[in-house]
């Protein structure tokens, strides 16, 4: 049901459904390894001897099929990924917008992300960052190689003591450390956050990133999105995949991001296509907890019967109960306890009336 609601939302914005087969040529993943999350791929040899893979990702297939035109698609597909040493099938719902990505196109995808989360819970949070702003700042600090990676890891942890320790050991200038600490402290509604980040911008790249971001923020406002989109520079994951705005969605009680996405122009560029791209994926598997209305019973009624019961009448009686909206499991008495758990247990005898069970 949730899936249908989401599909409808995307279609309202004119997004087309993207369907693909389970299998994709392995070459696609071998050539674009950098764009895949780490982990193995399930491969097999097809009937004609070519090497195929169970798709670990949808975005690559969408980009592969893009002919350099503008395209707005959504999908619900299973992907196969390794997590914790075993492969899992994960249902992913996602949106990709490909073409000349201007602030409008960017804002539209962010709005779809926010509205997807709102479909699940009014009480959602969408955090946004801009990797080109963070990248520009680190460039100005002259951070490269291992030191840059360490600073990024510390940013992701909002690790103030870690930054201060680096400054203490002379690996960071005092002023740079202070700016990084301020950067980590920013956690505010988008426009407010942009104003705070303005104090930290040092070069043109950073200014330009902020200017773009504030245009996007204004468009988001006219889409009716306020407050629940926040600026948080601790989202720095996959800095080589994404090149601009990135975002993650959170829902209460789920301790992981349930949605993640961003601007990824590097992938089409690598494939030789003159387009930009932005998109997100929603991890449906992580929502289970949220819809955690666990079933307490296998069936409403457990109807047991002895060897001498009239089976014709029993069938009619059980059907009658089902018409009343009860789920009924019929079980012949064996002397063993029944392995199912039911709300009510009733022994069928001739002449029993439905009222006795329905009461």
């Amino acid at each position, binding site marked *: 049901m949730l899936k249908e609601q989401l599909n409808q939302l995307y279609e309202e914005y004119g997004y087309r459904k993207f369907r693909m087969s389970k299998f994709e040529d392995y070459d696609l993943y071998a050539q674009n390894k950098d764009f895949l999350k780490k982990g193995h791929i399930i491969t097999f040899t097809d009937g004609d001897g070519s090497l195929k893979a169970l798709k670990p990702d949808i975005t690559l297939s969408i980009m592969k099929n893009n002919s350099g035109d503008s395209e707005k698609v959504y999908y619900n597909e299973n992907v196969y990924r390794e997590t914790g040493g075993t492969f899992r099938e994960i249902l992913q719902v996602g949106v990709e917008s490909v073409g000349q990505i201007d602030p409008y196109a960017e804002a539209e995808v962010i709005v779809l992300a926010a509205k997807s989360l709102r479909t699940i819970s009014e*009480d959602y*949070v969408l*955090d946004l960052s801009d990797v080109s702003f963070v990248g520009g700042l680190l460039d100005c600090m002259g951070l490269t190689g291992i030191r840059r990676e360490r600073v990024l890891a510390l940013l992701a*942890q909002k690790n*103030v003591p870690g930054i201060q320790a680096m400054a203490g050991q002379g690996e960071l200038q005092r002023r740079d450390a202070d700016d990084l600490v301020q950067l980590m402290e920013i956690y505010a509604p988008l426009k407010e956050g942009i104003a705070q980040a303005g104090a930290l911008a040092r070069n043109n790249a950073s200014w330009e990133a902020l200017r773009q971001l504030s245009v996007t923020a204004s468009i988001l406002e006219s889409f009716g999105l306020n407050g629940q989109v926040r600026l948080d520079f601790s989202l720095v994951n996959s800095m080589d995949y994404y090149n601009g705005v990135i975002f993650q969605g959170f829902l209460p009680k789920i*301790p992981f991001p349930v949605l993640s996405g961003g601007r990824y122009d590097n992938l089409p560029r690598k494939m030789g296509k003159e387009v930009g791209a932005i998109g997100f994926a929603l991890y449906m598997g992580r929502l289970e907890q949220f819809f955690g209305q666990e079933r307490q019973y296998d069936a409403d009624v457990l109807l047991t019967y002895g060897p001498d019961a009239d089976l014709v009448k029993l069938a009619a009686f059980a059907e009658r109960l089902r018409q009343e909206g009860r789920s009924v499991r019929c079980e012949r008495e064996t002397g063993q306890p029944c392995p199912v758990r039911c709300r009510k247990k009733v022994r069928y005898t001739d002449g029993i009336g439905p009222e006795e069970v329905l009461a």
Partner: protein
Amino acid sequence: MINVALPKGRLGETAYETLAAAGYDCPAILEKNRKLTFENLEKGVRYFWVKPSDVSIYVERGAADVGIAGRDILLEYRPDVYELLDLKLGRCRMCVAGPEDFYDDPNKTLRVATKFPHIAGEYYESRSRDIDIIKLNGSIELAPILGLSDVIVDIVETGKTLLENHLAPLETIVDISARFICNKVSYKFKHQEVLRMRDALEKNL
């Protein structure tokens, strides 16, 4: 309500005292009984004691919003959490230790016994030293004495235990102290509460 995971033991007790002094007291915690969680509704805080190495797991998975964890645990298990504050408690060092006159023969694979295979592995990898990690769960000092390993990687507080066993700290890998950590999603949904607790703690250090 903020859920706080405290590590069992002296560090946890000191950390609780700091939290209590910062306005998050919960008198029930001092009673001797078998209860597992302790609440002070008025202060909006619930405490529970867990094994020190489990604190980061409780916090990462959101069963606790915040927790107190030693940096050794954070470096070893790499939980995906925010590390908001250095509490400057439980200070010690992660060290390589071995016999006082230990000579590291570069022709041999170094055998390292430790409770912290991740930290030890990374340290030696950064120095391109080929090692054989022996994961132990306690009494690490025994390993070089019995010839199970050449050196150990372990926490050194005063160095007394080492000295008694005729071992000495050879190299310091990293300084350790207790950290105030926070679940990433709790940081978003309980932002004000978490920051209030962090700032109160910071003032009371």
